[in-house]
């Protein structure tokens, strides 16, 4: 129910609008639903609106889960 694609903000147009890029697509998006958008921010865009800024990474958190899963599977932890 929610096709939302990461876009990178290229240019702020005004308090509610920005130009953003997803791959090769450049499009105008609404920024009413996020705080303080800045060029370079990566945002999730749904129905023409940025609905959240994507944080840089949750790799550390997920790594913990990954290790638990591997241990459950009986994998060797050495690697």
């Amino acid at each position, binding site marked *: *129910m*929610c*096709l*939302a694609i990461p876009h990178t903000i290229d240019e702020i147009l005004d308090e509610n609008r920005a130009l953003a890029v997803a791959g090769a697509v450049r499009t105008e998006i*609404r920024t*009413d*639903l*996020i*705080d303080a958008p800045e060029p370079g921010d990566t945002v*999730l865009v*749904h*129905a*023409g*609106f940025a*609905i*959240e800024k*994507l*944080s840089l*990474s*949750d*790799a550390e*958190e*997920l*790594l913990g*889960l*990954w290790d*638990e*899963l*591997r241990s*459950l*599977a*009986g*994998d060797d932890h050495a690697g």
Partner: protein
Amino acid sequence: MPGSARETAALLRRISRTPLSVMEVCGTHTVSIFRSGIRSLLPPTIRLVSGPGCPVCVTDQGEIDAAISLLEKGAVVVSYGDMFRVPCGRGSLSSKRAEGYDSRIASGAMDALAVALENPEREVVFLGVGFETTAPATAVLVEEAARRNVCNLSVLSFHKMTPPAVRILAQDPGLGLGGFLLPGHVSVILGHEPFAFLPGQFGLPAVIAGFEPDQILLGLAEIVRQHESGIPALSSVYGRAVRPEGNLKAKAALERVFEVRDASWRGIGVIPASGLTLGKKYRAFDAEARFGITLSPGVPPPGCRCGEILTGRITPPECPLFRTKCTPASPVGPCMVSSEGTCGAYFRFFKGDQS
């Protein structure tokens, strides 16, 4: 780094030891799961059941009928593409366009405002369809229309809320569900709390996941881990996008513009306090008020078992109409029409009897 999708699938096959039925609520998850071929990689112990998270599928025929009557009154009706071919007894937005009525496709909510500004002499109605991911965009549309005094624009709101539907399914012992894969982008808006009742009240694992195959597989693996350990919890593998408190700005917009009411879910029936309608402050922009519409629940076509599909009671191959009378060319119910409806997905991506 966590593993790739392939590695996660392999891990999942090793850690899943006891049978488990998992409901994936969200239609976008249904499509992603099919398109990436995840079903073919799952161990036989896991049964994936599709839920009612396809907002197009659960839009009641009475609601589409109301949209069509607005077209017939001469209004321009603007809708997301997903709704265009969904039929009610009198046709669809697509078939009405073929008859010469003015239905148009929006890829973003603000397209409706543009249409209204370009056509000041016409009534323009925006069909607000979707769950909590999509409703905030409609809220912004309404507030901007009010601010700019765009009097020829109104909204027909069919927005629905996901947690009440999930609660009904979690309560149903007959479904035998052992865990939920929760919609990633609804959770971006709502945060963790609205689904905490799943482990809290029903002892069911519930994991929020994004839509790439590696996310979905990791989410399933976490559900299996909780299931095998016997300790259910609400957790998220989509921390990159989902904050535990959700998107406060979006939630505030919903609060300002909408109020909650009972809603009729096609195939399921009325779910109390599960629908969003424009609040009193914005009644002037409510198409139901402006055009004097009363929504009455539609009657499902004879033999249509979409309700059982949407609640995961049966799979499409178990419906006698599937592939016989009900095909994408001639859909009987919404599950076949929508690109993310369970039956449409099965028809396009899957052959075989297993679910």
